[in-house]
């Protein structure tokens, strides 16, 4: 291939990178320096970093994302490991990933029905004698639904990582006399860490910015960075502040990526 042809092939792709990566980020940075009255100012950042409301919200959002990631990891890792041990693992995997094809909104909607006062979960509680509980609009239900939605995204990269471990390595470990647990601890687990890392990436970052769940399931009593951005952009029209929070989110995202860097495997969706 000549370099001339490379450029031609590149052309639409280049335009895309310019138009939808560089310019939007540039605009976001620019907008974050625009104050309420349209002048150029750093007041948005000053407000953000001096306001207890915003700092508290950021900390809370971080904490929620952390908990969601942790629970998702604890559930997904064993699932991925056991999956690789089964026969017909491809089919199993596909079936576990299938729920991601159902729209997130529909799943959230199902949980509204499940968790409400008259819903099935409460009817069950009533039946076993625990009595009806407030479930919807609690932190616990928000964490539950968020975890539910994120599980497949954690599952996939870990599964891929374990799958890629060459069987001969495991056989070698066996031949050297290691039992299942030792093989897992000393061979499989260290080799699957790259999958865990990318799993954390694809769950943690979106968890910082979940916004329709905070409304539908959290009743707007859980505020994440994403909720705040959505509110500032679409409700209160303070685009400057919205962009400022956006920049903070981008910085957090880069930090997460750096902390979990390693070879990337698996992507957000199958």
């Amino acid at each position, binding site marked *: 291939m000549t370099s001339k042809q490379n450029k031609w092939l590149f052309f639409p792709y280049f335009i895309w990178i310019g138009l939808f990566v560089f310019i939007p980020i540039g605009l976001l940075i620019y907008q974050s320096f625009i104050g309420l009255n349209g002048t150029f100012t750093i007041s948005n950042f000053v407000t953000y970093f001096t306001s207890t409301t915003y700092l508290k919200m950021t900390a809370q959002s971080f904490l929620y994302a952390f908990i969601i990631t942790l629970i998702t990891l604890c559930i997904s890792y064993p699932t991925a490991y056991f999956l690789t041990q089964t026969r017909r693992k491809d089919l199993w995997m596909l079936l576990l990933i299938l729920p991601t094809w159902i729209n997130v909104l529909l799943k959230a909607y199902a949980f509204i029905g499940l968790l409400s006062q008259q819903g099935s979960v409460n009817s069950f509680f009533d039946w076993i004698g625990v009595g009806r509980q407030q479930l919807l609009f609690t932190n616990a239900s928000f964490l539950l639904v968020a975890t539910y939605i994120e599980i497949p995204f954690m599952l996939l990269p870990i599964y891929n990582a374990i799958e890629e471990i060459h069987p001969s390595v495991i056989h070698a470990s066996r031949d050297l006399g290691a039992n299942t647990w030792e093989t897992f601890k000393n061979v499989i687990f260290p080799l699957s860490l790259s999958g865990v890392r990318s799993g954390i990436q694809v769950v943690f970052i979106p968890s910082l910015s979940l916004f329709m769940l905070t409304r539908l399931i959290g*009743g707007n009593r859980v505020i994440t960075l994403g909720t705040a951005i959505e509110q500032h952009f679409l409700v209160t029209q303070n685009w400057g502040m919205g962009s400022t929070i956006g920049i903070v989110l981008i910085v957090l995202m880069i930090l997460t990526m750096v902390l979990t860097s390693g070879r990337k495997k698996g992507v957000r969706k199958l």
Partner: protein
Amino acid sequence: MKQLIQLAFAVLGISGVLYLGSFFIEHSQGASGTDTLNIFNWGDYIDPELLEQFEEESGYRVVYETFDSNESMYTKVQQGGTAYDLTIPSEYMIERMIEEDLVLPMDHSKITGLDNIDSEFLDQPFDPDNQYSIPYFWGTLGIVYNDQMVNEEDITSWGDLWNPEFKESILFIDGAREVIGIGLQTQGYSLNSKNDEELNEAFELLRGLAPNAKALVADEIKMYMIQEEAPVAVTFSGEAADMMWENESLHYILPEEGSNLWFDNMVIPKTAQNTEAAYAFINFMLQPEVAAQNADYIGYSTPNKAAMDLLPEETTEDEQFYPSAETVGKLEVYEDLGPEYIEKYNDLFLEFKMLR
């Protein structure tokens, strides 16, 4: 390669069929006229039959889209990428839109039936002489309670919401001005306060109310109250009317301290492409029969005097929805606060949402 190209053409072919499908559906309903009217209205804020009737009578095709807050409507109009011919904001937003030159002045010679409107609702401070807006509905903010779960005497004022018995059980409307307003009015301050001390005082008071909040939502309140998810909700009168229609245990009250009185008026945004259609729609909605049917369906209070005569007496004599002059005197209309104080209210509200 050949196979890929075939696939690509297949995809394009299917998209073409889909396009024809949606085109066909769009044009098979209502009038066949190519003249369209883009209406941007609140969710569930018109009797859908009336839209059909309008299409039939006028020959315009209606494209109907909804918003769930004045602010989100404003964003889309101000953003400029939209072509709405008619929208129905509330008074403080109309004031702001007039100021920012986002609405077109009304040509009164093209409007018929304005005399059907009660003069009480014309010539309001936010739009003197109705140069820009024509009344659509009006209403109040109040409290809905379920008499199976709450005693009637326990809910008469905003102050009663602080009752520790209501821990985590009140649904609030998701609006900064509404919720901060509760704090202000309980203290006897104006809903339009631009006094930092008053606002802080109101907020300190609201801290005590936060534990009683179950959720801060909007359209959802209707469903949750009907399904008895919560005993008490703070919401608008028309929403309340809808709920009470579905569930007989629900009641609506105007708090003793007073409340918010609001007007939703029809305006023609600057982005309008088809003002003729907009005028036709305004005139249609001003007809007494139409306004009455709409009021009956939506449950909000109509400003149309001629329509009120057509409504059942039990509706128009209901003090909670058509309050007496004395009660109205205690109600306050929102004014545009200006960007700085809007932000202040919003920040306080954000903090309120995070309180437990």
